[in-house]
């Protein structure tokens, strides 16, 4: 096939969007939009890397615009990209693993639309109005109208609110899919029992019973992981929505000419509240979803049972409880924060993440080991990359969640480099790439990857770029470079030039991946994903002919 023909119709013209089921289309829509939002995040990240080298390197971008990018960048990355890919994958995998249709494809499509347009709304607001209180929103900064437009802020909050409504619909869809009984089938366990088993509460309750009287698990381990992560997703959506409404009250009052007193809200109490909610993502659903995905991928790649499956299930439950009690590690440098909270929640509960994530790491590796020799496929390769990312990033986080070290690390590039970016770019993103490569032939009815060579280049550029960028940012952090500011005198140029080079590798890796996928499904195929499905079945995959 000619290049032009492949570009239009995909490799060997195998991919036919007309043959996709509504569920396949729904999942692919989430993945395509999630990947495009990742691209937007990567471009923004590269712009910030350049500005960290030279603040005048991009004409027309001043400090206000820089901080607007810094506000939108993590939110587009986590909500626009990761949420989209994860929601799409889990809306497909939960029914796939439970061997029944999704509770509501319509609700799934609403989630897709709300997350997509919500992300575009808050991104657009930051881009146009430079609303830039960062994702931390430390009170009263989001309501500081001497620096920010209340109208811009209102649109920003509206965008986040749309995403949160979509998120709540996702949560309902997942839990209803776990509990409902498809028409014509017999109920084998009550919905309540299914939910209690999925979230781990029936296990927690039966732990005090004799071993012989303990209840059996009603859902598989990956479904339990998805359910437990979804509990944190719901709690987080509640916190973010409440906070958004609170900020919106101040904005609406300002728009109508009344300035509300910002001291009505205690800044430290707000900080505690907000970090409790944010950690449900960073230290909750991300770690739980990732561990569940590792387990699923390891069993699918090897065809073997998960090693120490019961311990893995226990670790997921512990991680859920840990995620509700770790928030204080973000307040180690707040002198008014009670010392006991810093020690217990900030240091010791946080240290449990080393244990839970360490267990997930080793259980996955041992499961893979049990099936050697394995072929180094794309899913396996990227899964190992994801494991390495968390192997590096979790201990980096434990180091900073320490009373002594936080005094000299807080808000430095160390936090955002070796911990956050290595966790997200190498740990989370490579795990998602592994899942994408695994699901690609299933979701496309056997489309053939355009180039394995390009997939290999994508892997190496991404992993070297991700670890390299995190490392150079970390080195700058050790030398005192802060994370939420600009430097005008080239104080950290050596590290920042190297970090920008590593960032460029990441960006090139993304474009190579994008090109490979476009050539696999073709432009017509890509557009066809967004057309209504001709096949109206509720089945996940087309019936075998």
């Amino acid at each position, binding site marked *: 096939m000619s290049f032009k023909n492949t570009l239009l119709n995909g490799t060997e013209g195998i991919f036919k969007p007309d043959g996709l089921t509504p569920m396949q289309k729904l999942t692919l829509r989430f993945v395509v939009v999630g990947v495009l939002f990742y691209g937007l995040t990567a471009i923004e990240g590269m712009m910030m890397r350049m500005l960290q080298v030279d603040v005048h390197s991009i004409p027309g971008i001043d400090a206000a615009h820089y901080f607007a990018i810094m506000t939108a960048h993590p939110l587009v990355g986590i909500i626009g990209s990761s949420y989209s890919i994860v929601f799409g994958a889990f809306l497909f995998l939960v029914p796939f693993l439970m061997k029944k249709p999704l509770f509501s494809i319509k609700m799934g499509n609403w989630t897709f639309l709300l997350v997509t347009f919500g992300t575009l709304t808050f991104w657009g607001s930051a881009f146009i109005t430079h609303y830039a209180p960062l994702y931390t929103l430390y009170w009263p900064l989001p309501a500081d109208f001497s620096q920010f437009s209340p109208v811009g802020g209102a649109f920003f909050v509206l965008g986040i609110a749309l995403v949160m409504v979509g998120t709540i619909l996702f949560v309902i869809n997942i839990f209803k899919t776990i509990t409902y009984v498809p028409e014509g089938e017999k109920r084998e366990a009550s919905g309540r029992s299914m939910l209690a088993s999925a979230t781990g509460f029936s296990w927690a309750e039966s732990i005090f019973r004799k071993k012989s009287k303990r209840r059996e698990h009603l859902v598989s381990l990956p479904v339990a992981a998805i359910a437990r992560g979804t509990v944190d997703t719901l709690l987080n959506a509640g916190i973010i929505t409440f906070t958004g409404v609170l900020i919106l009250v101040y904005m609406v009052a300002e728009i109508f000419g009344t300035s509300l007193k910002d001291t009505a809200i205690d800044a430290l109490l707000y900080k505690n509240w907000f970090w409790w909610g944010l950690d449900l993502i960073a230290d909750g659903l991300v770690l739980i979803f990732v561990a569940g995905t590792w387990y699923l991928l390891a069993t699918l790649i090897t065809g073997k049972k998960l090693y120490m499956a019961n311990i893995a299930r226990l670790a997921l439950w512990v991680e859920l409880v840990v995620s509700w009690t770790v928030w204080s590690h973000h307040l180690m440098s707040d002198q008014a924060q009670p010392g006991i909270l810093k020690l217990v929640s900030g240091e010791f509960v946080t240290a449990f993440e080393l244990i839970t994530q360490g267990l997930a790491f080793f259980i996955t590796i041992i499961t893979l*080991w049990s099936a050697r020799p394995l072929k180094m496929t794309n899913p396996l390769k990227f899964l190992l990359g994801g494991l390495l990312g968390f192997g590096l990033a979790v201990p980096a986080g434990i180091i900073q969640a320490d*009373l*002594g070290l936080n005094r000299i690390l807080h808000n430095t590039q160390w936090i955002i480099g070796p911990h956050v970016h290595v966790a997200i770019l190498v740990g989370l993103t490579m795990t998602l790439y592994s899942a994408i490569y695994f699901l690609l032939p299933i979701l496309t009815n056997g489309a053939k990857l355009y180039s394995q060579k390009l997939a290999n280049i994508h892997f190496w550029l991404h992993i070297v770029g991700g670890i390299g960028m995190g490392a150079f940012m970390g080195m700058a952090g050790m030398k005192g470079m802060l994370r939420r500011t600009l430097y005008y005198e080239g104080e950290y140029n050596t590290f920042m030039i190297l970090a920008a080079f590593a960032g460029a590798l990441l960006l090139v890796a993304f474009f190579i991946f994008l090109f490979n996928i476009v050539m696999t499904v073709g432009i017509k195929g890509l557009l066809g994903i967004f057309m209504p499905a001709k096949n109206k079945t509720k089945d996940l995959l087309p019936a075998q002919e």
Partner: protein
Amino acid sequence: MVDSSVVLNGQTIAYTIYAVVVILFMLAIGYMLTREGKAGVLKTSLFSALVVFLIILGVSLHIATNVTIPWVKIDLDRHNLTADKVVNIKVANHEFKLPEETITAKVGDLVLFDVVSYDLTYGFGIFRKDNTMVAQMQVVPGHRNDLLWKFEKPGEYTIRSTEYSGPSGHQMIIKNAIVITK
């Protein structure tokens, strides 16, 4: 008290060694997974030992730093300690207001920085001439923000906000604001 730069250097070395070991481990795993060989699983006893090791590692790190890093004890006990010098700093409208043009103290003095914010959340950081950080804390409006610190080396130190307070606040810097003499 040990200077914070020593702790930073120690941490850099320790984490670099750890990172290299983990990367090599994963490269070896990746290579071995594709090779013919014994495909057994880890014995339960060894797995249990691994769990115990992770627990000890997670907890001992904090115990070790709490015992060895001297400013932790000073920080936790700061309300019972008497400062040799008290420095009251006000922050408002993205500007530090120092009690005197240059804050002076001697090596080994316990200096209490009491920083009050009248509007936003800021940061208060002390930096060396080479831009490395000595120490920092958050400055939250409506609360007491007090940092008790013992300087180990003479020199001139810069004060800089370590927290984002909007685009107007990203250059809150006072160079050579603190002078420590022998």
